[in-house]
């Protein structure tokens, strides 16, 4: 066991300063852009990060990285979180990148991979559909073979960051005669192809996501990832890939609760503590009230607890804590916490009412918390399966 301070040598400190200075200089405009759009990516910043080799830093220089040490990777992750840089597109891209590297032909790799680290190519995940969410194997989007091409037809939903992505990893039904999860194939669909239409969906959590329509989109077979009808195996492997900036190699560093929604809870706690220490009424601050102190201590406890476990355990806990604590904080702070960002009288510049809204989505996306509870029950505790396959 070790939770001690990491010794940072001079070159690493220099790198850290460089990252800090750069992100300090862009933070305000990037955060403001994200408030306005909910894009989940800032394309200009993304390109700049790629230019510096900071998107996939552990890669060698000739592949677009900087040969970064695990510590440098952890520093980058920590700083990106600290500066509230939107990373949705980035994490989607990293997940698909790993699948392409595992399953793509040399030809496909040569076409798409070099641009990824440079920040010129982004991916999104075309899994969910209007009638297939938690039960992903029931997707209806069809992929029909026609000579050397696939004809993709159907509709994907909640395809976050599709509007700034170059390719979508599409889960499609290639053989409807086979049992549910056995007739699926994964295809990397170039989003510039004719027949694709992307429309916006806006969420309660200030996120823009998308509906993507595929109208007889023709894709050459070399964009297929993994064997025909074997998408389930490809997906299972994809789930094992931790998304993020080399986090698997920096797993022994504490990157500030970066693996789950506890980071948002920590920001919320920061805002609440600031409120409790500064607002004053009749010579008393909220922190002088034991009820306030004890609630903040409860939330601080959830932050410490929720940041430790990864996987389904971390996912369930961090989402539940965020949902409960953001609601409780609104009660604690009172009606003024309902005032929106930028309005006069807003507490914490509207952070609490935003976080309360945002929290609800965390129990849903990337697989609901109920799906993760079933994973804990079945894969960790060994309980019998609760659902038909």
């Amino acid at each position, binding site marked *: *066991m*070790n*939770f*001690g*301070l*990491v010794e*940072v040598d001079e070159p690493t*400190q220099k790198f*850290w300063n460089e990252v*800090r200075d750069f992100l300090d200089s862009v933070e305000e405009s990037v955060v403001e852009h994200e408030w306005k759009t909910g894009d989940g990516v800032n394309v200009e910043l993304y390109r700049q990060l790629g230019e510096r080799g900071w998107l996939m830093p552990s890669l060698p220089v000739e592949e677009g990285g900087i040969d970064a040490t695990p510590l440098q990777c*952890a*520093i980058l992750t920590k700083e990106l*979180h*600290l500066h509230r840089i939107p990373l949705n597109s980035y994490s989607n891209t990293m997940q698909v990148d790993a699948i392409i590297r595992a399953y793509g032909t040399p030809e496909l790799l040569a076409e798409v991979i070099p641009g990824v680290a440079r920040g010129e190519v982004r991916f999104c995940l075309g899994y969910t559909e209007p009638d297939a969410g938690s039960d992903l194997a029931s997707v209806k989007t069809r992929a029909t073979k026609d000579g050397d091409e696939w004809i993709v037809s159907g509709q994907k939903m909640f395809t976050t960051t599709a509007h700034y992505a170059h390719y979508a990893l599409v889960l499609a039904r290639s053989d409807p005669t086979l049992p549910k999860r056995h007739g699926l194939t994964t295809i990397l669909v170039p989003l510039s192809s004719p027949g694709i239409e992307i429309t916006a969906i806006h969420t309660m959590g200030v996120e823009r996501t998308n509906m993507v329509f595929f109208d007889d989109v023709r894709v050459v077979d070399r964009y297929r990832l993994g064997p025909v009808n074997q998408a389930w195996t490809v997906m299972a492997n994809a789930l094992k890939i931790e998304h993020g900036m080399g986090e698997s190699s920096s*797993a*022994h*560093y*504490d*990157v*500030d*609760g970066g693996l789950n929604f506890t*980071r948002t809870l*920590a*920001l919320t706690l*920061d805002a609440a*503590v600031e409120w409790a*220490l500064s607002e004053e009424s009749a010579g008393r601050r909220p*922190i*002088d009230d*034991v009820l306030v*102190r*004890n609630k*903040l*201590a*409860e939330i*601080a*406890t959830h*932050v*410490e*607890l*929720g940041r*430790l*476990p990864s996987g389904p*355990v*971390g996912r*369930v*806990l961090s989402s539940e804590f965020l949902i409960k604590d953001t609601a409780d904080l609104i009660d604690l702070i009172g009606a003024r916490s309902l005032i929106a960002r930028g309005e006069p009288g807003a507490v914490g510049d509207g952070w609490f009412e935003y976080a309360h809204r945002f929290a609800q989505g965390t129990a849903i996306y990337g697989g609901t918390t*109920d799906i993760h*509870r*079933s994973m*804990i*029950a*079945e894969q*960790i*505790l*060994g*309980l*019998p*399966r*609760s659902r038909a396959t």
Partner: protein
Amino acid sequence: MSDRAMSMRYQDFSLESEQQALFDSFGAMLDRECSTEVVRAAEPLGFDEGLWRKFRDVGAVTMGVPTSEGGDGAGLIELCLVAEQCGRHLAPVPFVESTVASRLLARSNSAEGRAQLSRITEEGVVTTVAVLSSSDGEPQLIPAGAVADAVVAPYGDELVVARSPKAPELIKNMGTAPLTFQALSNYSERVALAVDARAGDLFSEARLEWKLLTSAALVGLGQSALRLAVDYAKERTAFGVPIGSFQGLSHRLANAHAELDAVRMLSRKAAWFADHEPEGAAPLILMAFLTATRASLEAATATIHVLGGVGFTLESDAQLYFRRVKTWSLAGADLARDLNDISATRFTPGASAVPAATGAAR
């Protein structure tokens, strides 16, 4: 909280091979020596003399005492690993209290402390610590007091060892723990280990160690309770299927597992800080204790529920776990005050203006 400091910490939960061996060997020993039949047979006193002798034989009783005082100098990480196994097996021995008391005696760095320590190491007497103590003359609940002929406790401005020729009487309680309800004045002899601020500091530290080790024991207890529920839910059928396939049950058990898993990590992290950076350990220990009491209670409660009517009977082992949760944590031992302490350390460090939440300051 997120912080802008340019520093990075390791987060490595892996155990050293010696630590893993210690954990495994205590697990194996207790698997052999401490079945739930043994636990039941030790009731109502909640003490198995043979098992305690075994603990002495393998060096567990003095492992936490510094080598300079005749112990093995084990750290709190190692002690937590043993406490977790004790919890897992509901071991009817005062490992936590005795360990905290003997470390406190050693830290007092006094002739009186040394004298009592040698009684522990050489004569095998049980010494406990009155962690709930807040005032002098009144009777107070003393954990392991009914099997200890000496108790370390605050008394006026002093920290004293109070002794009596034989351990005071058991007071019957929910968890069949060896509690006694005694005024310190009823002990025949009291000798001072420290006075004034130093007495307070030593005692505060001991209370934190008790909370840390108790958090580990509660995690172990919760995990065993959960295992009982999971095994039952796999076997028991209703409506033609195993009841564990119903999400109403399995998701509750999944939640219980998630909490216990995280609390175990927090408890071990707190132990690491207590060993390596004690100045930063207090809030983590209080958080581990707080969450361990809740997570272990939920595991034990869910277990009774999953076992249904059977789980509510005295024949079932479910009740053995359930009755001990509140008892081992001494009904939470001032959780509201702990929250206040967490808040004070985290949000208003150094501000003496923050009044204590309840009662007297520690």
